[in-house]
């Protein structure tokens, strides 16, 4: 059948127009996200930049805006991250090794896998309630930085396990068989061959989950982080506050000056998170190039 050339030209023009429209639409979607992000950051920097100085980082909180600082919050967050790293990293990485290297495919490992993936999606406030019941009340840790750190460790554990498993799975099976062929035991293979190759991925997962723990507010409020405290923890059993808690406290004060101070706090938190992500990228690149070389 002969198609009228005018008709086919019209169809071609129309589909070209739709193509163009769709392309523009997708581009607008992409830039909307980025524009909103920049708008937010721009607003925060505009409001909070003037409040940033050394005194802001080294003073305790105060009701006088010019004297208020983040010292207690920064030290509290450092303690929290230390505790999270100390507990979540070994447990998470070992669990990933077990599931990938030792666990046999079967009902039990299916059951474990499904649960760990589901845990990664549980809202953080639920971990807060768990931490309150187990660490604060049952184990009598009270509102200590240890209880807060352990709660956050539980929170990021599934993320660490999932990302470490993916990194371990990405190690080519040939490396393992080559290692066995040379007479290495399973332990030697895992420790000397699999883990070093998987390390960039594992570290990236660890640092990204630490940054997530860094920004959490809800579970810490439940396990009793202090809103006002003028001391830094000296032992794991001491009271503490954390960066997002301090920011939340300032943002909810009636005076507008404190809301600007909250913006300054957000800048500090963003810079810390940005640095942590940069370290993750740096480590990944370094290890990748070393592995290739």
């Amino acid at each position, binding site marked *: 059948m002969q198609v009228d050339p005018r008709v086919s030209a019209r169809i071609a023009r129309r589909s070209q127009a739709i193509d163009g429209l769709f392309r523009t639409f997708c581009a607008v979607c992409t830039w909307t996200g980025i524009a909103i992000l920049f708008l937010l950051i721009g607003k925060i920097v505009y409001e909070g930049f003037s409040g940033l100085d050394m005194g802001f980082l080294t003073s305790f909180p105060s009701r006088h805006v010019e004297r208020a600082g983040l010292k207690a919050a920064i030290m509290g967050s450092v303690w929290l991250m230390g505790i999270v790293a100390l507990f979540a990293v070994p447990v998470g990485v070992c669990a990933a090794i077990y599931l990938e290297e030792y666990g046999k495919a079967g009902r039990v490992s299916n059951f474990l896998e499904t649960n760990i993936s589901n845990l990664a999606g549980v809202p953080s406030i639920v971990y807060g309630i768990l931490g309150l019941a187990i660490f604060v009340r049952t184990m009598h840790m009270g509102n200590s930085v240890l209880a807060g750190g352990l709660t956050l460790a539980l929170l990021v554990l599934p993320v660490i396990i999932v990302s470490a498993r993916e990194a371990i799975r990405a190690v080519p099976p040939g490396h393992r068989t080559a290692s066995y062929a040379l007479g290495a035991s399973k332990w030697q293979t895992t420790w000397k061959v699999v883990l070093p190759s998987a390390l960039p991925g594992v570290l990236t997962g660890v640092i990204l989950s630490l940054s997530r723990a860094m920004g959490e507010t809800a579970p810490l409020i439940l396990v009793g982080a202090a809103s*006002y405290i003028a001391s830094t923890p000296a032992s794991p059993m001491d009271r503490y506050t954390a960066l997002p808690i301090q920011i939340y406290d300032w943002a909810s004060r009636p005076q507008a000056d404190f809301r600007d101070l909250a913006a300054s706090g957000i800048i500090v938190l963003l810079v810390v998170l940005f640095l942590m992500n940069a370290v993750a990228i740096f480590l990944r690149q370094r290890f990748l190039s070393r592995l290739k070389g």
Partner: protein
Amino acid sequence: MKILRLLPLAAILAFGCGESGPTTSIRIDGSSTVYPISAAAAEDFGLVNPGVSVAVSYSGTGGGFKKFENGETDINNASRPIKQIEIDRAAEHGIEFIELPVAFDGLSVIVNPKNDFIDYLTTEELKAIWEPGSTVGSWSQVRSGWPDEGIELYGAGTDSGTFDYFTEAIMGESGACRPDYTASEDDNLTITGVAGDTNALGFLGFAYYVTSKDLVKVVPIEGEGRDEPVAPSSETIMTGTYFPLSRPLFIYVDADAAERPEVDSFVRFYIENAPVLVPESGYIQLPASAYDLVLKRFENRVTGSVFGGGGATVGVSIEDILAREAAE
């Protein structure tokens, strides 16, 4: 693998960074309304007593009492008197308390500044709007002559003493309130909501209204049996003419904890400096003579509540508190 070996070291470093901290600590929780006063007291106390760490949190008056009853905190901030059930639960855990009024607060009813028809509200009108099962959905249903525009309601969440007090004062029963309003534990959100909504009506603590006078408009309230509406101000709250939406604020001190020297000196510091700290935090201080009586009450370790476990008590003026203090 070098990096992996460095991880524990980094963790140890992180632990080591803490300076040698204070040896004794005081734990305070409770009302977010009283929180700014207690945090201010903690700050100034810390300047002269660097050896004591005072940690102040907020989880609402009721939430705070739950921890106080378990002996988890030394002092509870409260924006209403303790309830009988809270007294009972504390007694089960062998906890006695010293009740100390520290300031006065007024609840403010606010509307959007563009709202030009509202001149005042009576407590009956407020009740009609807020009571459980209320079907009031537009201004014309509140008072004839007002426009037929929908009312958007904003207010404090159910965990706050502000909510308890508002419902007690307006509905006559603590906790009785229609559920379909925008509730928040953070009074700033109420301000933001009302400032951005021409048809909004909200209630919140006086301190939050005072710092946002340019964003919202306060509504004078005509109390039941009063003949003219009164707007909240330092004078009207202190003299009790702003009725029934002004209330006393308290701290409850664990009687055992009060025997610890650091708690004892903190509470004394708190009461002695309240005339400065309270107005700085946006509230109304008691008269100097009242603070003398409060201090005496603490020194004599008078336990129990003068309110008989009634919870939120409406229309308590400073004179009332003084009279109850003097009667003991």
